[in-house]
């Protein structure tokens, strides 16, 4: 690898202000809903009010008569469209194809049953109310364990069961480990179903030109090229005639990496109706029908020595997958990814896990930042806290005695992950130091005497990042990886960087420009980063799973490096020196040691394009390179410590502060790294204390507005302290590791751990999250 170490100068590693911000700050940026093309018509979906019901009949006659209505489509009208199914077959996972509009049955509240197209969204909603669906309600099942029972209502009758996956894996000598144990501990945790809830909901616009057969599809998506491929296949339009444009995207967090039924339907409506068809999801639809996440029932059993050493672990992870497991094998991704990360940062070689995926009458599950890992980390860290309490050990000490130590790198886990480098123990010690751990413990004891309950929660984590094909394999979820960057210097010397990774808040237009600017020796102002348009960006899988800094940064570095060589070759001919004797800084190519012998990037580029005297025979004149990068597996790590006080009488929690020490290897831009960490911590606070998708026994969704589904606000998130450790990866370009997910992976355990630590005098045990005031009061009361 030629770029093991990236040059760090003016741009790379600096706190560069984001180039995308001015348009966002002034309201000039165009998100999906802000785009209106002439002749646009609008879609409203008719959605199931039942968790489980048979569709007897749908009457659309009255709706079709409503003012401004162009069409009403039901399953019969979209018959040519195949159901959504898992694109990547996983061995042992039973298929549960999802019709793009419900056919015969509905299986969750919010499932789309019909699509109404009208001249405005107002009129479309008026008409949607006039669609009459005759339902025969069926018994619903909303609890995964209940759904596993033989007499439970079955969602997909053809399968004969709601269990779509079940597999036990034994690693190491699990029986031996338990035979040697001084103690065996058990814990169960049912993590909450919570959701990404990006501030911008989903949406799409379908524009079909009949004469040419071209489809232009605007979508708020994280994966434009994947969406193009699937739309082409679903609609039977040749891929070269499909263009996907992802405009400004208002957050994704995984929710927008799925190909959704609504997108396929809207694309089809555009093709059939021949007018631009627009659908902007409203918040109620988003909460009911966009993918949910993170709900698992995890049972853990640990073989423990008296000194706190964990000898072996057994885990049973039941993923509550909701009604369908569609194109990301979504029902399975939670428990499967979770199982692989149960050992986490700890040196545990004997491990057995059973992974079960179950269908229930709830919205399908998809990715949300740290998919699978949040639940696993939360279950294990809370379990370890409990073990420490029961052994009379400090929870920090228990972690010290089990964490992988520095001399063990590269460390291969029993699940097959290869931890390349990191600061596992150091991050723990540094976080404890920053938070003033010893003093906090003294203060805690003092306050308890006054009837006040302070708590400290520690969550020590490792985060698989850089989703290339190797880490996908190691993390237990074989998923391909293919991404490209094209770096081009145009004749005037300005730089275009086109990338397949997608930015929806991450600031790639800044960080990837930093990489290119540093390598090419130009100012960031002379670089523009393009993404999100399949006609302008090279092919790739898009942004998810903390991959864009590593893959994006790596592929831009590779492409920029090649273009730099081309520039130097051309300049060497113009200046009549060897390329090795040249350097580039601030947009000037100069002879090392003789800076007055120089050319501007403009002069070099202009000559490269238009002066055939500098072109060697057979040489491509274009100052452009396209590079692919599929990184080796790399792992970030860190430690998040939360301090809180609990009012044990009301169950209200006041967070005092959260301290995060993280290590993502080489940082492209520390400001952006901190932003990622802080945002993810806030989401973790939501997951620990506020957010829950609640269904009643009949399958009714109780939380379909922001009045009932509670996101944390500025008053709920305490001051955050972020500190960086930097252990560059030995295996990736520049030593970069990803940073997108650690905060949400680790914070719920840290916050819930702090609350339970505060409640330690009551020996409060909690099996369900989030920790609502009521659950806390109950736990205190049951002591």
């Amino acid at each position, binding site marked *: 690898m030629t770029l093991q170490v990236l040059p760090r100068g003016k741009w790379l590693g600096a706190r560069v202000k984001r180039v995308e911000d001015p348009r966002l700050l002034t309201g000039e940026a165009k998100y999906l809903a802000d785009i209106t093309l002439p002749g646009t018509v609008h879609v409203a979906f008719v959605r199931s009010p039942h968790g489980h019901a048979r569709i007897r009949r749908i009457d659309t006659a009255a709706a079709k008569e409503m003012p401004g209505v162009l069409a009403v489509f039901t399953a019969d009208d979209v018959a040519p469209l195949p159901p959504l199914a898992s694109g990547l077959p996983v061995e042992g996972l039973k298929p549960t194809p999802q019709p793009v509009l419900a056919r015969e049955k509905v299986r969750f509240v919010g499932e789309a049953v019909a699509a109404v197209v009208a001249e405005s*969204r*107002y009129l479309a*909603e*008026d008409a949607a*109310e006039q669609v009459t669906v005759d339902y025969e309600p069926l018994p619903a099942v909303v609890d995964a364990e209940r759904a596993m029972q033989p007499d439970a209502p079955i969602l997909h009758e053809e399968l004969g069961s709601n269990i779509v996956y079940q597999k036990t894996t034994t690693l190491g000598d699990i029986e031996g480990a338990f035979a040697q144990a001084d103690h065996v501990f058990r814990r169960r945790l049912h993590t909450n179903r919570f959701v990404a809830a990006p501030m911008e909901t989903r949406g799409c616009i379908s524009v079909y030109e009949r004469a040419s057969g071209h489809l232009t599809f605007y979508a708020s998506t994280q994966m434009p090229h994947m969406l193009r491929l699937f739309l082409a296949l679903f609609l039977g339009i040749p891929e070269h005639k499909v263009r996907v444009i992802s405009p400004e995207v208002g957050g994704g967090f995984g929710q927008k990496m799925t190909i959704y039924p609504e997108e396929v339907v809207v694309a089809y409506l555009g093709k059939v109706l021949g007018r631009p068809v627009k659908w902007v999801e*409203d*918040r*109620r639809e988003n909460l009911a029908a966009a993918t949910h996440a993170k709900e698992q029932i995890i049972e853990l059993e640990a073989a423990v020595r008296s000194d706190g050493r964990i000898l072996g672990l057994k885990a049973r992870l039941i993923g509550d997958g909701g009604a369908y497991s569609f194109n990301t094998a979504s029902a399975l991704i939670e428990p499967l990814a979770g199982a692989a990360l149960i050992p986490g940062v700890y040196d545990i070689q004997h491990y057995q896990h059973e992974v079960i995926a179950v269908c229930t009458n709830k919205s399908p599950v998809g990715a949300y930042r740290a998919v699978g890992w949040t639940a696993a980390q939360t279950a294990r860290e809370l379990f370890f806290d409990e073990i420490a309490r029961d052994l009379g050990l400090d929870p920090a000490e228990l972690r010290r005695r089990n964490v992988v130590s520095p001399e063990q790198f590269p460390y291969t886990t029993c699940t097959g992950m290869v931890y390349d480098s990191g600061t596992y123990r150091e991050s723990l010690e540094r976080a404890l130091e920053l938070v003033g751990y010893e003093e906090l413990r003294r203060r805690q004891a003092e306050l308890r005497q006054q009837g006040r309950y302070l708590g400290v929660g520690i969550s020590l984590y490792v985060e698989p990042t850089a989703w290339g094909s190797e880490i996908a394999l190691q993390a237990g979820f074989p998923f391909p990886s293919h991404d490209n960057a094209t770096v081009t210097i145009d004749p005037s010397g300005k730089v275009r960087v086109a990338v397949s990774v997608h930015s929806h808040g991450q600031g790639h237009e800044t960080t990837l420009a930093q990489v290119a600017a540093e390598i090419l020796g130009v100012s960031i102002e002379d670089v523009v980063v393009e993404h999100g348009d399949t006609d302008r960006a090279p092919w790739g899988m898009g942004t998810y799973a903390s991959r864009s800094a590593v893959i994006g940064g790596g592929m831009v570095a590779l492409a920029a490096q090649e273009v730099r060589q081309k520039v130097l070759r051309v300049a060497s001919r113009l200046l009549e020196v060897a390329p090795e004797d040249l350097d580039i800084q601030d947009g000037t190519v100069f002879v090392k040691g003789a800076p007055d012998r120089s050319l501007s990037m403009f002069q070099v580029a202009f000559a490269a394009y238009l002066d055939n005297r500098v072109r060697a025979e057979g040489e491509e004149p274009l100052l452009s390179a396209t590079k692919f990068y599929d990184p080796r597996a790399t792992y970030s790590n860190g430690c998040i410590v939360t301090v809180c006080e609990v009012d044990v*009488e*009301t169950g*209200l929690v006041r967070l005092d502060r959260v301290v995060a020490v993280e290590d993502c290897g080489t940082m492209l831009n520390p400001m952006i790294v901190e932003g990622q960490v802080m945002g993810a911590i806030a989401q973790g606070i939501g997951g620990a204390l*506020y957010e*829950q998708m*609640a269904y009643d026994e009949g399958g009714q969704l*109780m*939380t379909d*507005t922001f009045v*009932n589904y*509670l996101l*944390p*606000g500025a*008053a*709920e998130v305490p001051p955050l302290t972020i500190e960086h450790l930097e252990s560059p990866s030995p295996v990736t370009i520049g030593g970069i590791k990803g940073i997108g997910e650690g905060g949400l992976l680790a914070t719920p355990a840290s916050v819930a751990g702090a609350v339970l630590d505060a409640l330690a005098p009551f020996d409060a045990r909690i099996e369900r999250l989030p920790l*609502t*005031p*009521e659950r806390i*009061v109950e736990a205190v009361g049951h002591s």
Partner: protein
Amino acid sequence: MKPPPFGYTRPRSLDEALATLSTHGPDARPLAGGQSLIPLLNLRLARPSLLVDLAFIPGLADVQAENGTVVLGAMVRQRAVERDALIAQRVPLLAEATRLVGHPPIRNRGTVGGSLAHADPSAEYPAIALALDAELVVRSASGERVVPARDFFVDLFTTALAPGELLTAVRIPVPPPGTGWAIQEIARRHGDFALAGAAVLLRKTGDGTCEHAAIALFGVATRPLRVTAAEHALTGQPLTAESIREAAALAVEAIDEPLSDVHGSAAYRQRMAEVVARRALEEANRRAGT
């Protein structure tokens, strides 16, 4: 999430508004600040045929003091209440309660009358009106009547207002100097509706004997409640930690029809009613002069 169709009228006088309401019957709804009604429209949970906008009627947004009473017009914005020096001085409980209503942008539009007439059982204003023994001035095409707060809140989102009637003002008797006051509430997040709340007024004599106690609960039942049993138990008794605890324990019994939702079960709210009542009584006792 778009509102269903409805008509709209913008009367320029109270009489015009009342005549319109009387003509159209219950399908016409008065529109004050809209901070409760418009979400219901957007969610299509309310379907009026006509909205009668009260914002352009002169004289409905005044705050006045008249012999021992503060009178607030129904269209006084909550932000105006929050900033009003007269209210801060004479009815500090109201000023404090207002800061617990939603968030500033909500209070910039939300009105006193709108909140009272909406009668959300978890809202602060109805309970405050109840604790303060406020009187609600109600007008219709056929005249005016005055309804004591304790008769005004009937049930979940239901008041004593008859079709065609409009709440035009609320009269608040200014508590005598030295009156202790407090409002305590438990909410999931800053600005959220209360899972349990209590508003309290207390007066005591020089030796610490309770002369007057008013305890109103919100967020726990289908309407705001006065805890008269606790008020009676305290009156004439010395205000001690013990007597306050005993009085607060009576709060639970006042709750006839408990509220329950995803944020808190009936059992939790009932238990918390006692906690907020006790904490509010303690705080009001600290503030009460003699």
